[in-house]
């Protein structure tokens, strides 16, 4: 496994995975914090009733729901497509690394990249809020919980997209699914709560730590058992799929 992870790390350099993650961090922070420097927003920076941090956090939830499913699909697609194009599955098998092991190694490396992305998004957005001059106490627990939940949903969907990219040679399928998933994630934020639990991408909305009630923000959280079930099922399915890939003859596609 260590050798497979080492190989995947080398592949990420040529695939510019880190550059892509960094660029997406900047894009998400810029879009989420777009209103920070407007006059109307600045007026409420010292007023706890205006809930400036909660507004900023909800902005991040919206932008992350829109971009994260596509980012996960792109990362998984890029990391797997090279195996399809360069007979990588065959070469790895000759070296004693089955397709399932290779997928798990890819999950580890891309998981680290997504961890960096989620943490950097939260930290930089908080820093942007402070630089802009928000004086109200920061709801750090709320933000940390959202960052952790965002990372867990990203990882759950990463498993799905890695499997999809490995099974289907045409990366249009994985990217199309990611794009439609992003659509679902964004609209799940605007629809009744149960909608968010129907498809995996809805969890980007379900994990929102704030919700709008009337003209103010209230604390919100995903249903614990449903979220735990989703994460456990995703992990079990991914590991099961990897085992099947390892046992199958030839490449996974």
């Amino acid at each position, binding site marked *: 496994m260590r050798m497979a992870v080492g190989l995947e790390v080398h592949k990420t350099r040529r695939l510019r995975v880190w550059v892509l993650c960094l660029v*997406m961090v900047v894009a998400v922070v810029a879009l989420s914090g777009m209103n920070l420097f*407007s006059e109307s927003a600045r007026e409420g920076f010292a007023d706890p009733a205006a809930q400036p941090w909660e507004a900023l956090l909800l902005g991040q939830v919206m932008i992350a729901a829109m*971009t994260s499913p*596509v980012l996960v699909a792109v990362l998984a697609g890029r990391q797997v497509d090279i195996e399809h194009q360069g007979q990588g599955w065959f070469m790895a098998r000759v070296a004693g690394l089955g397709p399932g092991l290779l997928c798990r190694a890819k999950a580890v490396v891309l998981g680290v990249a997504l961890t960096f992305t989620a943490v950097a998004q939260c930290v930089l957005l908080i820093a942007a809020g402070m630089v802009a001059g928000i004086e109200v106490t920061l709801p750090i627990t709320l933000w940390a919980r959202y960052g952790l939940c965002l990372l867990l949903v990203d990882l759950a969907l990463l498993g799905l997209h890695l499997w999809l990219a490995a099974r289907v040679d045409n990366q*249009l399928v994985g990217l199309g699914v990611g794009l439609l998933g*992003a659509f679902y994630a964004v609209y799940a934020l605007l629809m009744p709560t149960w909608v968010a639990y129907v498809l995996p991408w809805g969890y980007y909305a379900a994990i929102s730590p704030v919700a709008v009630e009337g003209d103010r923000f209230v604390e919100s959280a995903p249903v614990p058992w449903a979220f735990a079930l989703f994460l456990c099922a995703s992990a079990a399915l991914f590991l099961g799929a990897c085992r099947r890939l390892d046992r199958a003859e030839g490449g996974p596609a």
Partner: protein
Amino acid sequence: MILAELTKLRRSALWAVAIVLPVLAVTAGSINYAANQGVLSAGWGSYWSQVVLFYGLFFMSMGVAVLASAAWRMEHRGHNRNLLMSTPARTAAIVGAKIVSLVLVVAVMQAMLLTLVVVVGVFVLDLEGAPPWEYVVVALLGVVAALPVVAVQSLLSMLIRSFTAPVAVGLLGCAIGTGLLYSGQGGVVSHLFPHSLVTSALFLGNGAVADSAGLDLAAVGPIVFAAVVLTTALWALSARLLSQRDLS
């Protein structure tokens, strides 16, 4: 050549994206409209604004990025690119045929969106009055405004063998485009950025979006002009780069 391109696309899975994306936009917009009738004003205006809200902001451009990658994917496989370059056609014609065939797919996407908006609005939501003709203009304008996005994504997909890399650049383009439009710093620059142009066009006359312009000549003219100029420039650049690159 355009017919040849369309034949290549005939069995491609890209039609699934071109059809499912508008279906999702209308379904989600309709449910959102129906669920928030207490907050939204009743009528075609609110319904339309809910349908195109995220579609115009992000998903139409991302859909185009995926379509362009899919259209060039077949040329990057095997020796298809060499075969294509060995035909007597000029590079401008090769790139032009790709752009036109992709625009036709985008037009189908927009026609689908418009038809579904009318069908759901009349028969499901039972909205009063006839659907406003302005939506036909906005949908058509969306196709025109998508021309530069098609051209730039086609250029990227032509240059980059990877399927996903041009889509990743497209994702970044959407982020920059939205930032330019809504940071209030864009001005003329937002008309020179392909992804902003799509959002500007689809949000014309949209009551749900702050600062969206009305559907008049003063707003439509610059969008059409910018789309034509950008597309021509990107087409010429694509043709030049294709003629300069070695066979793969």
